[in-house]
């Protein structure tokens, strides 16, 4: 039942470009989709392990820059006898490289930051993203700094009968993002339902108890951190190869905040939360654009956020999960567990 409704939703989304081939709509939804993938990755940490990473845009940016640079090729003088020269790589290889690089940083940050928890972890992650932005701004030889990396090649795909197709049309971009989003969702869903996923929920709730029954807390957190960073890196790679221009602003705090809002409004710790929150807060600015003045847009945005948190403090999905009960994709219904825990 749950699987069926999931497939129906995916199929409906896949048909959108056929039923409603409006390029503007498709590009807006694709852009929101990339943020949703990033939000899904943040939810792994924030929702399932309870660690608030306020530097999540860093992994997004690292994925974007690594993937873009590998596909463009670069040479950079590191101060050794000869400069490091990297020839342009096939786009998918570059894309994979972005994921690997982001995961690596996820591992590194996990190793360092999980020694400090809570507020200190938050500060470490913020600083990390700021440092990354400074590097992207100032290492002009490598990143072109504020001049931005331009003409990044798009991803391409071999389609039977058509040969290799460059994924540049709005519809193909949309499908690409949708496929990546579904993949990210399925990976996260399986991870959360696995043994280590249960362990993460256990340690989020009561770390001392989790430790006392032998859950390897640090290892568990690092697995989540690496996967979370990897998925964020994939989102960044998608951004780089679909927008095809990136500048150091991808590391801006506002992107992290946008992800956090999507996760919290949708319902952290639920699978569908970041998707629902991402659709609302990703599409809202565009939907309001033609209707009201920009200043009013942001007011509506803010008011909506406050209203959601006021009336649905656990987020939209948990609030409606209780009503719809069956067929929902939320893993658990915190509304049912919280009230009775005494």
């Amino acid at each position, binding site marked *: 039942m749950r699987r069926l409704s999931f497939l129906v939703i995916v199929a409906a989304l896949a048909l959108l470009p056929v039923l409603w081939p409006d390029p503007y709509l498709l590009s807006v939804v694709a852009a929101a989709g990339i943020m949703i993938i990033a939000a899904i990755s943040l939810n792994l940490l924030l929702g399932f392990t309870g660690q608030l990473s306020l530097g999540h845009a860093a992994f997004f940016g690292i994925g974007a820059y690594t993937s873009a640079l590998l596909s463009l090729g670069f040479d950079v003088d590191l101060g050794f006898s000869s400069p490091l020269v990297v020839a342009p790589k096939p786009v998918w290889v570059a894309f994979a490289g972005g994921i690997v690089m982001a995961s690596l940083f996820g591992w590194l940050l996990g190793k360092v930051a999980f020694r400090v928890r809570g507020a200190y972890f938050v500060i470490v992650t913020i600083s990390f993203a700021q440092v990354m932005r400074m590097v992207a701004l100032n290492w002009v030889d490598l990143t072109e700094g504020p001049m931005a990396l331009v003409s990044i090649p798009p991803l391409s795909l071999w389609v039977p009968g058509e040969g290799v197709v460059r994924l540049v049309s709005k519809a193909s971009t949309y499908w690409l993002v949708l496929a990546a989003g579904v993949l990210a969702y399925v990976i996260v869903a399986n991870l959360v339902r696995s043994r280590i996923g*249960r362990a993460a929920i256990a340690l989020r709730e009561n770390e001392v108890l989790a*430790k006392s029954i*032998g*859950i390897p807390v640090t290892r568990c957190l690092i697995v989540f951190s690496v996967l979370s960073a990897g998925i964020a890196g994939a989102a960044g790679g998608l951004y780089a190869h679909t927008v095809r221009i990136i500048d150091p602003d991808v590391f801006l705090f506002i992107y992290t905040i946008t992800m956090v809002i999507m996760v919290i409004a949708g319902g952290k710790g639920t699978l569908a939360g970041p998707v629902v929150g991402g659709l609302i807060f990703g599409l809202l600015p565009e939907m309001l654009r033609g209707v009201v003045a920009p200043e009013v847009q942001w007011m509506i945005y803010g008011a909506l956020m406050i209203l959601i948190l006021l009336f649905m403090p656990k987020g939209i999905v948990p609030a409606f999960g209780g009503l719809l009960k069956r067929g929902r994709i939320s893993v658990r219904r915190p509304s049912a567990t919280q009230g009775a825990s005494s």
Partner: protein
Amino acid sequence: MLKLDDITVHYGATVAVDKVSLEVNEGEFVTLIGSNGAGKSSTLRAISGLEPVVSGTITFEGKPITNARPQSIIEHGIAHCPEGRRVFSQLNVRENLEMGAYCRGDHAGIRDDLESMLDRFPRLRERIEQPAGTLSGGEQQMLAIARALMSRPRLVMFDEPSLGLAPNFVEQVFELTAEIRAAGTTVLMVEQNAYAALELCDRSYLLETGRVVLQGTAREMRDNPDIRKAYLGG
């Protein structure tokens, strides 16, 4: 089986456990009694690797386990049933039990143990898919004990298992600890209720401000005039 030699545990600048030595033999039921803040829980936490030991050694079945990681202590065969919030309220009963076997790799064995645990605690079977947070206090304690047994321990440590339970459940929990020992598992229990503890155990240690001040068989302890006065109410 378990041997603590002069172990010391600090909480910041405070000494929580001060050169405590004690021994638990295979098949025994040993209790640590004493008032609040005497260092009983800290001793258990030091054994299970949750609190660093500053000096002294802990050995289990001849192997040193001082300052080992909690998961390796469990793999050695020691389970810890801590005080306070005892279950993962957001996980259901089955998941809580499975968490107890986290360090084990034998899936078939885990499934069998889960079944036998549910046979033993029919109330848990009735609530198997319910979030543990919706269980009553007594049921939560049952679940915590069952979860501890899921790691197939040879030594199980209970920290104040009766704390905060309704009187009829207190009785049940104590009976359960006796049953566990009768089934061949060694038990080390921390209990403030000295009267009940001395009824159940073979031997006991009295802790005061982090030190062992008295030890003996349950009978010796019950008959000791100081203990009668301070802990058994005359």
